């Protein structure tokens, strides 16, 4: 499973700015809902999160300490 940006449908207003800005085509509208498709092309640029006006789309980071 490839980790992808997450969508909260309750917050989404379907403005589709995330679709417009996504360079890898991972974000689509299916059945009048924003869906994020799994793709290795997603480089976690976080632009979809940056442009989302309602905070519905998020790109959380896992933070880990490097093992030595």
């Amino acid at each position, binding site marked *: 499973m490839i980790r992808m940006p997450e969508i909260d449908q309750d917050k989404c207003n379907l403005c589709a*700015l995330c679709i417009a800005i996504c360079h890898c085509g991972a974000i689509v509208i299916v059945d009048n809902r924003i869906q994020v498709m799994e793709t290795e092309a997603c*480089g976690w640029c976080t632009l979809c999160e940056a442009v989302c006006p309602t905070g519905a789309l998020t*790109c959380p*980071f*896992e933070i880990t300490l490097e093992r030595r």
Partner: protein
Amino acid sequence: MPVETNILLALPYFSGLGATELENIKPMLFDKSIPRGDMIFMEGEPAETLYFLINGIVKLFKTSAQGKEQIISLARPHEVLNDVSIFGNGPNAVSAQAMTPIVIYGIKKDRLEAVLTQYPQVGVRIIRALSERMQQLLTLIEDLSFKHVIGRVAKILLENAADGDVPGHRLTQQEMAAMAGTAREVVARSLKTLEERGLIRLNRHRIVVADADALKEMIELEP
């Protein structure tokens, strides 16, 4: 797509104007569609036209002498792209690039002055919009001048990192910004700086703390 009255009404400069006023102002503006990636204007060039973003996303950025790009903001629909440069009679303070296919409305400086002479109420709305912009810039100055955001970001990373079997929290840049009391853009810049210094690695959706000791030192230096 021609200039439309209902879209003009959604722009902060013209909201609340009557139908007759809007119909008179409409011919002063032109519309333009621009493909993703194209430049709208360049930093340092004369600012001759005021632009309103109607559809899509525009990146406003500055470029350092070393060619390093610094994003000032990502403009969303109905935002004005270059009011400060237009009203300040200066060159473009930033560059603007279409991040998606976009539609903009433009109005030449001389035509804008004619609108302001004829409809002083537009001037009041512009003052209001510029005041909001100034407030945003004052907040940014405060962030950059008085707060050592990078130290706070370092602290957030250490406090939320998974360590061995202890799971860490997953955090968005927006959440880190809220925790650090700053803007998301400042967090993004701080993470980039920490990566350039070799203290962390940004590995897609993972932030790997490569040098925890150096991060701790940074927290002590910039509490």
